[in-house]
């Protein structure tokens, strides 16, 4: 029992300290998650709009594939890109394995389906009222579309927050593609896994607390922000 209490007190000491290794780990996690979320949104959001607006054969199939991939285990993505990026793999010459770039690639792939599927369902749930109302007020095709994007903005932002949360908390991809290299690819989750196996509870608990705090802060501010614009009560 004592080791847990010791761990907790060590955790608070670390959080209140300026321990550079500890804060480097936190910063790297945040940085990589932001980059992969941005990349996934740049690809995924337009793809989702395309899937909703354009009618073509195989559209529903693509959406179903995306929905299925939403729950892909992180280690499977890790395994997939490990085999591609490892020296014997098809992209082995790029020497990307165990780099931050590899982690970003894997994480982007991991959350791309999350961004696509959630955005698709958000846009669909916007229902007909957006276009019906803009048409009734005299909007042309372009103006209708612009209003549609504009009304979708909070819903899409919520999808991106969910995607960020998933990537920020994942461990499989970071571990397999980053390799948990100290001061280079060690993220919060990989560090927790390593430190716990070494019996270093203090650092693990501290990182766990920070992980939760970051997730909470982001969600809290997002909620505040959207409430400002929420429609009539």
């Amino acid at each position, binding site marked *: 029992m004592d080791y847990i209490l010791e761990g907790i007190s060590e955790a608070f000491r670390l959080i209140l300290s300026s321990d550079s290794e500890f804060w480097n780990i936190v910063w790297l996690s945040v940085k990589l998650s932001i980059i992969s979320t941005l990349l996934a949104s740049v690809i995924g959001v337009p793809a989702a709009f395309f899937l909703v607006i354009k009618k073509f054969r195989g559209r529903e199939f693509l959406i179903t594939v995306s929905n299925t991939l939403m729950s892909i285990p992180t280690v499977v993505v890790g395994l997939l890109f490990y085999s591609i990026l490892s020296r014997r793999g098809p992209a082995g010459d790029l020497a990307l394995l165990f780099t931050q770039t590899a982690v970003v690639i894997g994480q982007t792939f991991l959350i791309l389906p999350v961004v696509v599927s959630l955005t698709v369902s958000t846009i669909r749930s916007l229902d007909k*009222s*957006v276009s*019906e*109302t*803009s*048409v*009734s*007020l*005299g*909007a*042309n*095709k372009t*103006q209708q579309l612009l*209003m549609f994007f*504009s*009304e979708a*903005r*909070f819903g899409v932002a919520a999808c991106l927050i969910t995607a960020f949360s998933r990537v920020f908390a994942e461990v499989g991809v970071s571990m397999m593609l980053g390799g948990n290299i100290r001061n280079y690819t060690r993220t919060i989750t990989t560090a927790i896994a390593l430190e716990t196996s070494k019996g270093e509870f203090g650092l693990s608990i501290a990182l766990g607390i920070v992980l939760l705090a970051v997730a909470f802060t982001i969600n809290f501010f997002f909620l505040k922000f959207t*409430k*400002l*614009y*929420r*429609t*009539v*009560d």
Partner: protein
Amino acid sequence: MFRLENAQISFSGFSLNSGLLEFEKGRIYCLTGPNGSGKSTLLKIIGLQLQPDSGSVSIEGRAVDYGKSEELLKNRRNISYMLQDSRLFYASVFDNAAYGLKIRGLGAAEIKEKVNKILKMLEIGHLASRSLKGLSGGEAQRVRLARNLVIDAPVYILDEPSAGLDTRGRELLAEILSSYNKEKGATIIFTSHHKEEAYRLSPEIISVIDGKVSPIPRENVFTGSAEKTGEKLYRFRNENISSIYFSSDHAIKDKVSIAIDPEEVILSLTNVHTSARNCLPGTVKNIKEIPSALQLTVTAGEDFTVLITKNSLEEMSLKENSPVYMLFKATAVKVIN
């Protein structure tokens, strides 16, 4: 101005046929009927929001071509159309109200002036910079109204514009609509649940029941109570009229307004037994010549308007104060609400 000829639309077990329906420039029309009767659908067809499956809609004598999107857009922009429960956008009250003007390409200064003016008229000027959060249902409805009424259009089509408004709001709405009609000659077509305010605008009334559309003559409108006397048969009475039988497919609550088409009333000098269920004794009060017919006012408790030809008048040698019987079928009586 608008002319609908058997514009028909069907979806999921519901079907609506406009019959022949004409809307004249500069007049006010009110569509009445129970919920789900097809009022909104009919409004959408008139307002070019919905293309009928068959039949035609024409504006100023030209049939609307739904395939020509530019022409359609131009026609739509001549109408300020307010959907029932239209969506308010994630934006400030001002920006919501300004939307119709923005997409019509008006300049910022002009938009500002017009929007502020209409917000003031609707007594929500102080809300201009507010987001929608915290607005009451009534305030939100005023924002929707502002968004439509700020548009300078020859036609306003408003689906339940007074829904959710308080008494003051309904008064303001009636004042504005009345002034648009009188000063700008705007044509106004709307649906409403608030009869008092609606009828204050003295609109032409069009009844929509189960997808069937029938313009109701403004003559011979009486309000009173109804009691069921048989299958689909009711007896109407008020303090001046002891009984008028009418039929209705719908259950009638005790209070009811009815209208009788003057052309459906037959005059007789004697109390004859016919298939017409109603036979009311009365006295000719007034005879007036109108184009192609004579318009008689017959007093039978209340004043009834009846149309007959010149020949009939002469044959029956009717004069003022002549006693007559008015005969009409139970089906000639239209229920307004």
